[in-house]
């Protein structure tokens, strides 16, 4: 077999983002594991000791190297994976800079033992601080075993900056998972100080995920798959209940490469809006497959930031996919006094015969209580994790301001809206001018009229901005609203959207508006207060990350035009409200994430009297 490693031309080497390749033991692990994956291994074993300070060893059963390649691999800018600058943009393998092994060799005592499957003897190379100590022919299994000892032995400054062993171990686990997750076809073993932390069999992606996240049940993870011209996406999203108070269970991969992206993270977490409280982070794993040319992996030396050609499209797409997964699977809230949750259809796991409810589980207190952590080490490193997903989201969002309307494309679409079946009502009545009770078969629905109507209107207003215009009820007595010049600017910018929502507004003089008409069908319509209140809502949210103007608008108007507690409703109105609620994308929560309804089954009622 011919030798395959060539030295990169100088200019190509320079084109590559500079940076320190090896910052901590975890960086070594990442490079070694990625190399082993690239070598086509079926099984990869990782050993570490003392947080990787004293030992990091990666054993694979991949292609192995010829003696020459083995020697070459330790040279800077030696790589078999890239030969010209053009190739930089067509990367399907993980390593590409050809400087990982050279960097490692410079700062540790390293040993490589490698044999190609076709060769009879293996090559063993020992290097200390870039100095080749020995090259020998030895007996060894096919594949490659690289041992890195005494990392940073000659760089005391680096050594000082290392954290405690558990923290460094946690970083290593992070890197390990980022490689192990997208490669379920490869078996992985991971030993820390001789104890196994992970033993991952090769198998399906679902099995891999459940093996790694042993605290999750298979019906708590929903599967989605979508393909477009730009990218195909496979995703696993956790049901709202398993969202946690700490970050760390959010994974994005592009072409099986882990990356971080605050902007895309927002696309997904905003799909959970109202399903989970603000300070809780959903579980998700998304795999994108894109043409290698359409991303630039070279923007960060740690290779965890990636630039898509058209990130905005990916954003919308991702948001819609996540939303769909959640929307499809969130069913009627389960009737159980002990839990404030809703059932979820099992996703890809079609074998699940029925939905087992996790009672005593409160989705709003972060991670589930009383759940056994399958792996001790898991819980340890999760505890110490304070990972920070860096987000350049807000800056990017600014740039999107002009194009905001497109943000909704993937969200609630007018033409794709189909009538959903709402539960059929046997009898329905209003209680205390606050709640609507409805009996449907065996079940009793208790609905908070104010929260429910807010939800209905919010979705209606959002749809209206997206094209499903709301009719305008013209008013007999046009109202004049005088505004501060700054406030007037806010309203003036929103005039086209307000028109879609059903307002008939006309500019009058310099800083005044005339309200001629309001959205048809609204009950509490003091037009003047409505507009003034909306301006206030806008002013309050202005200071925060710009957020979504339409969302603020829809929220504000929904709050102000909705039915309130204390409003007496006619029979037609309550029936209508009930039916409209179940036409909503998300009938179960109001716009601040609070429950809109509760369902009691006949057994729940029985339980009340035991």
């Amino acid at each position, binding site marked *: 077999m011919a030798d395959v490693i060539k030295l990169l031309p100088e200019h190509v080497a320079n084109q590559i983002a500079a940076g320190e390749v090896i910052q901590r033991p975890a960086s070594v692990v990442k490079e070694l594991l990625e190399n082993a994956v690239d070598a086509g291994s079926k099984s990869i074993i990782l050993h570490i000791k003392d947080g990787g300070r004293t030992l990091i060893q990666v054993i694979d059963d991949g292609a192995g190297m010829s003696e020459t390649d083995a020697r070459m691999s330790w040279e800077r800018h030696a790589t078999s994976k890239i030969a010209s600058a053009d190739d930089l943009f067509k990367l399907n393998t993980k390593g590409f800079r050809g400087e990982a092994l050279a960097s490692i060799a410079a700062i540790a005592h390293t040993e490589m033992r490698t044999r190609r499957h076709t060769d009879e003897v293996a090559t063993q190379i020992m290097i200390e601080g870039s100095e080749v100590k020995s090259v020998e022919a030895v007996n060894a299994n096919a594949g490659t075993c690289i041992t890195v000892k005494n990392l940073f032995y000659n760089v005391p400054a680096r050594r000082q900056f290392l954290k405690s062993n558990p923290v460094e171990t946690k970083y290593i686990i992070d890197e390990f998972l980022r490689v192990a997750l997208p490669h379920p076809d490869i078996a992985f073993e991971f030993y820390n100080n001789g104890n196994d932390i992970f033993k991952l069999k090769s198998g399906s992606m679902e099995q891999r995920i459940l093996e790694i996240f042993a605290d999750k049940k298979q019906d708590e993870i929903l599967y989605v798959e979508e393909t477009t011209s730009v990218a195909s996406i496979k995703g696993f999203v956790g049901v709202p209940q398993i969202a946690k108070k700490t970050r760390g269970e959010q994974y994005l991969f592009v072409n099986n490469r882990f990356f971080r992206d605050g902007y895309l993270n927002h696309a997904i977490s905003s799909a959970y809006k109202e399903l989970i409280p603000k300070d809780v982070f959903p579980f998700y794993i998304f795999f994108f497959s894109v043409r290698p040319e359409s991303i630039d992996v070279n923007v960060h030396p740690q290779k965890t930031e990636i630039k898509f050609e058209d990130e905005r499209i990916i954003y919308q797409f991702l948001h819609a996919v996540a939303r769909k997964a959640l929307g499809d699977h969130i069913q009627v809230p389960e009737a159980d006094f002990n839990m404030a949750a809703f059932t979820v259809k099992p996703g890809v796991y079609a074998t699940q015969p029925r939905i087992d409810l996790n009672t005593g589980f409160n989705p709003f207190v972060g991670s589930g209580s009383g759940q056994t952590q399958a792996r001790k080490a898991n819980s340890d490193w999760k505890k110490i994790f304070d990972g920070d997903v860096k987000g350049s989201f807000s800056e990017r969002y600014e740039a999107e301001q002009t194009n905001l309307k497109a943000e909704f494309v993937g969200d609630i679409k007018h033409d794709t*809206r189909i*009538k959903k079946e709402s539960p059929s009502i046997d009898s329905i009545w209003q209680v205390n001018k606050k709640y609507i009770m409805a009996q449907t078969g065996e079940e009793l629905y208790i609905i908070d009229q104010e929260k429910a109507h807010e939800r209905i209107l919010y979705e*209606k207003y959002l749809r209206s901005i997206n094209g*499903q*215009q*709301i*009719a*305008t*009820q*013209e*008013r*007999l*007595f046009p109202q004049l609203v005088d505004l501060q010049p700054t406030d007037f600017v806010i309203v003036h910018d929103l005039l086209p959207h307000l*028109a879609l929502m*059903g*307002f*008939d507004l006309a500019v009058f003089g310099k800083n005044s508006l005339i309200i*001629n*008409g309001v959205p*048809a*069908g609204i009950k*509490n*319509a*003091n037009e003047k*207060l409505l507009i003034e209140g909306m301006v206030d809502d806008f002013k309050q949210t202005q200071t925060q990350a710009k957020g979504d103007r339409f969302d603020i608008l829809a929220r504000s108007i929904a709050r102000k035009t909705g039915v309130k507690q204390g409003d007496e409703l006619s029979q*037609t109105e309550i029936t*209508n409200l009930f*039916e*409209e609620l179940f*036409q909503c994308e998300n009938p179960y929560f109001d716009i601040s994430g609070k429950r809109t309804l509760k369902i009691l089954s006949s057994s729940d009622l029985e339980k009340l009297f035991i």
Partner: protein
Amino acid sequence: MKFIVSTNDLLKQLDLVDGVVVSKPLIPILENFLFEIKGGNLKITTTDLETFMTTSLKVEADSDIDIAVPSKVSLETLKNLPTQPVTFSIDEASKSIEINTGNGRYKLTGNEAKDFPKFPELESENSIVLSSKVLLKAINKTIFATGTDELRINLTGVYCQITDTHINFVATDANRLVRVQRKGFKNGFETSFILPKKAMNLLKNALPNDESPVKIEFNSSYAFFSFTGVSLICRLIDERYPDYTAVIPTENPNKLSINRNDFISAMKRVSIYSNKTTNQVRLKIAGSEMTISAEDYDFANEATERLSCNYEGADIEIGFNARFLTEMLNAVDTEEVKMEFSMPNRAGLLLPSENESEEDILMLIMPMMINV
């Protein structure tokens, strides 16, 4: 003391004033009828403090007495008795009230009459007199159009505008408006006030549909109605009424005349298909045909119906809230109804094909539009 009265006679009077009583009032005494018997005349009073109502009837009493009688129990008892004379035996000291029929004895406990709020003394500044029938009609034609928005208290009542020669009764909820005008007065003064809806409903229930005179006296805070032995005092809504005359369109070149019953029936059918929140129906008028249509995109429902009509003017398409329009059509008495339009975003007028003498009814409805 004792008094004897026919259940039927008493019930009739109690029914008139019972509407004033609110359930769970601020002060419990308001749940009572105040009975005041003097020289064989029983005067019954109810109040919720905003409205006071009295009526009276002759009874056979052996002496005078004032007592507050629990309204609910006494009314229920009387309602469920066949028409017959009953004897009320009242013990002043213990306030016990016993209702004796041929076969039954029903005992309840009354309350101290002096705890019952006093009927306000009204110092009236002005008064008018009109026939009960006329007032009844004015109330019937306006009350449905009053507003319910608690942020606009002024629109929740019926505006009564008195000029030297006529009286206007006006109601609007800002989406539609009704003005019933009565002419032919010689009032000699001008004033206006807003009558609360509750009092209007009570009058609606109590006014006889005949020529009996109704005297209306008023000052800046109260209006006082008296007719056929009944008196009603109500506190006025102390708010400014909007200048409604300014919004009545004067130039309406497009004029429609259509059979009212056909129109109502078609509206009933088509509006079943309208969006439940907006209730929007659209009228398309061209030539001598009106097409009524409605649709609900959420449920993929739609309906259209064609009606023939008399129409003068340019083709027009205009949307309305079906409920508003139907209520207004129902408030018209004539066989034919007239509608007048200017533009699809301007008020439409609804008029009876003819008015009684000295009467002018005008209704106005604001359109509902999809494209602003």
